[in-house]
């Protein structure tokens, strides 16, 4: 196991270098010249040249890339080009609200989806199963934006059940007052595809020979479902979850925008709009690192769930 982990960590180095190179090339190729955004109304060649000099954009591309490498090694991405705030402090202030929002959506959404999927898989072919599948298919065909707009209008404005938007510094106030509506809508948006995916995982497992053997041995259906099917069906569930985890950091852009939640989703949009390369660099690198780490973690969890899995 340890050798496997060391080998995987070593493989992360060239992968991260590739991400850095790709990001650097893309920004310089299609990112646009940030000096025009930062110059405001003053677009004189002297003002633009001064901005480029102050940002280090007048250095050669290899020199700029070396600076980028140093930033990644020290995890110090300097200051934002547009607000001049330290990138670290920007991300630090944004990550909490995003994790609270996306983490709770993922947790609640996954629990609900797994329970409903297991239930309809158990009742496969029944009216309930067909109804849930039909509703899920219809729900998936509606854009997430529609849920957000309609939910905010009807549940917050018309029914007055929730505030229209807002966020507080107090976690309890967020959990009890500001979070419930975006959480509800986030769960609703993700629930239908998750139910369909997890249902298919459960149904596939239930068709295996070992389930028939268990029944032949006289085990009850609940025991078969909970002890055997659920455990084996968890591998794709874990894969899906692990793939989702790095993106928790990215926040939920639409929800954050509509509910004025000061999370990473809003920050990403702002950074891209403003060609704020230091912020874009930091977020991309952290997401890349998180993706690699969670992939590794997923492999380890497979082994824990099913000891027959070989780590190679």
């Amino acid at each position, binding site marked *: 196991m340890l050798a496997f982990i060391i080998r995987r960590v070593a493989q992360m180095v060239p992968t991260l270098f590739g991400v850095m190179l790709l990001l650097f090339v893309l920004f310089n190729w299609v990112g*646009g*010249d*940030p*000096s*025009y*955004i*930062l*110059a*405001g*109304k*003053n*677009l*004189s*060649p002297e*003002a633009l040249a*001064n*901005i480029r*000099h*102050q940002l280090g954009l007048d250095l050669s591309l290899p020199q700029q890339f070396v600076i980028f490498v140093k930033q990644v090694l020290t995890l110090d991405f300097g*200051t934002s080009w*547009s*607000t*001049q*705030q*330290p990138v670290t402090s*920007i991300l630090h*202030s944004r990550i909490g609200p995003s994790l609270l929002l996306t983490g709770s959506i993922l947790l609640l959404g996954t629990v609900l989806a797994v329970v409903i999927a297991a239930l309809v898989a158990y009742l496969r072919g029944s009216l309930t199963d067909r109804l849930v599948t039909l509703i899920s298919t219809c729900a998936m065909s509606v854009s997430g934006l529609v849920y957000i*707009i309609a939910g*905010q*209008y009807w549940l*917050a*404005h018309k029914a*007055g059940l929730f*505030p*229209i*938007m*807002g*966020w507080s510094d107090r976690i309890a106030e967020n959990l009890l007052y500001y979070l419930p509506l975006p959480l509800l809508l986030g769960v609703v948006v993700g629930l239908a595809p998750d139910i369909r995916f997890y249902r298919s995982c459960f149904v596939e497992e239930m068709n295996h020979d070992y389930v028939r053997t268990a029944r032949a041995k006289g085990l009850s259906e609940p025991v078969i479902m909970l002890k055997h099917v659920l455990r084996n069906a968890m591998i794709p569930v874990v894969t899906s979850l692990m793939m989702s985890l790095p993106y928790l950091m990215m926040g939920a852009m639409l929800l954050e*925008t*509509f*509910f*004025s*939640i*000061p999370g990473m989703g*809003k*920050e990403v949009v*702002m950074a891209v709009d403003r*060609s704020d390369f230091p912020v874009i660099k930091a977020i991309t690198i952290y997401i890349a690192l998180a993706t690699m780490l969670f992939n590794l973690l997923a492999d380890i969890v497979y082994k824990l769930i099913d000891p027959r899995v070989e780590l190679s």
Partner: protein
Amino acid sequence: MNKHALLAMLAACTLLPATAADMNKVLHVAMNAPETGFDPAKVSDLYSSAINENIYDPLVSYDYLARPAKLVANTSTLPSVSVDGKVYTFHIKPGIYFADDAAFKGKKRELTAADYAYSIKRHLDPTVRSPWSFLVDGRFVGADELVKAAGKGALNYDTPVEGIKVVDKYTLQLTLTETNFNFLSILAMPAFGAVAREVIEANRDNTNAHPVGTGPYLLKEWKPGSKIVLEANPGYRKVVFDSVPGNDPVDRAVVKALQGKTLPRVGRVEVAIIEEEQPLWLSFLNRQLDVSGIPQAALQDALVINPKNPLDVKLADKYARQGMQLQRQQMPEVNFHFFNMQDPVVGGDSKDKIALRRAIAMAFPVNETIAAIRRGQAVPMNYIVPAGVAGHNPAFRGAPKYDPAAANALLDRFGYRIGEDGYRIRPDGKPLAVELASGTTALNKQWNEYWQQAFDKLKIHLNFKLGKWNELAKANQQGKLQMWGMAWGADYPDGENFMQLLYSKNAGDSNAADFKNADYDRLFEASLKLPDGPERNKLYDAMNKIVVAQQPWIFGDIRVRSTLAQPYVKGLKLHPLLNTSWRYLDLQK
């Protein structure tokens, strides 16, 4: 007793901290785009300036009620100006203090002339990268030498500059290189509010997050792009509302609510950044906001618009019955499309090129776009200087009449024949196609549909060059664009701020059309030597006629801003140049 001691005693009587604001009153407002920071020398966006306006004090400011906007004393008396319009002498009022800050080491820090000298010099400092440097570059006697000596490094602020002279603790003398009778309006901008040198130096790495001024509010909390909280500055000098109402009933209501009262009234201002229209509008309707603009999508719900005259507007009954207040104001801005005057197809001053530009202008339905895209909330632009800005001429009609048939006849007359493919060719027989630069938003697409229709009516091929704003701005500077739309809002309420947009020395900068016309330049330079008045207006008219004749721009429109306030909000009156009214607002729930 000497004169300064007497002045100081008098000031102490009138400028004692008043703490009039009721700290239990919280004003909830919103901005629809994120701010960037609060260093007045580093930011130029409207949203940051709106906050800075409440934290810092410029030397002079505007009367809240007077229209057209009228400059009044602020931290300084109105200056004496030399006969040649070059020397401005300001007397700072003694007894004004900065908000407390650690950089002051526990001592009260008085505002002095040196603070304004330092604050103005910061706009010249290459390391500050001030977006407003164009307003001060080359303006002050001796400043160019200081900037040159700095090279790409920091300015030496201790080097005396003849044009930015601290005469004594309370006297600042600015000497300009050229006559300028309108310079005062530049100094009224939030960008020229006073900062304290020791605060800037103590927070050198992050001046945007550490605003300390002498204004009515101080920054209590900042979550970039999300929330800004201001609290009444407990050390703010005693400022009593004293303004003369005009004929507007709103003026009388404001005077009734505020006359004789100290400002600010509200102890706390919470500013939410709400970029989407729905949450902004619903938050206002649910009283999570006290004052709000009306989003485009809500205009039809909120307003009753006379279909025959879209500017005849009243508040919808359901909101009027609740006592909500509607205020509307034409913005001090112009929206226009420009031609690249150096382009071989659309530029140049030969008659056929002028005819092509004129025909395109005549084929574009400005009134239709005002009705359909602006939903009636704009007026056609007819003069380079908009209403509310010194130098505007309301009688001038610069926009050509919408007449596609006449436009086609004009093109026929100047040799733009219809080719074999049914589209026009150039007089020299080469194919004719025009490329219009555009952004990629849904709104851009709406505009582009009208442009396509206009060009189709002229039988001219139209291509769109789509891109982000900074990419297009760069392409334009490199002469790679043929046509592009642009907006210019007043930085200060003087016609010079608009007329310079076509001055040849600003080509490649604010003169995006790269328009170079010797007559226009001569008139512009002559206008700089004159104060606002009939003599300068004549020059402006002549310059507008040149622009109408040469057609480097297609005049577009000027937007009308609609703002709603809850019934309990008192003291609101929209100002054409002040970004906010927060210090004047009271909440009487």
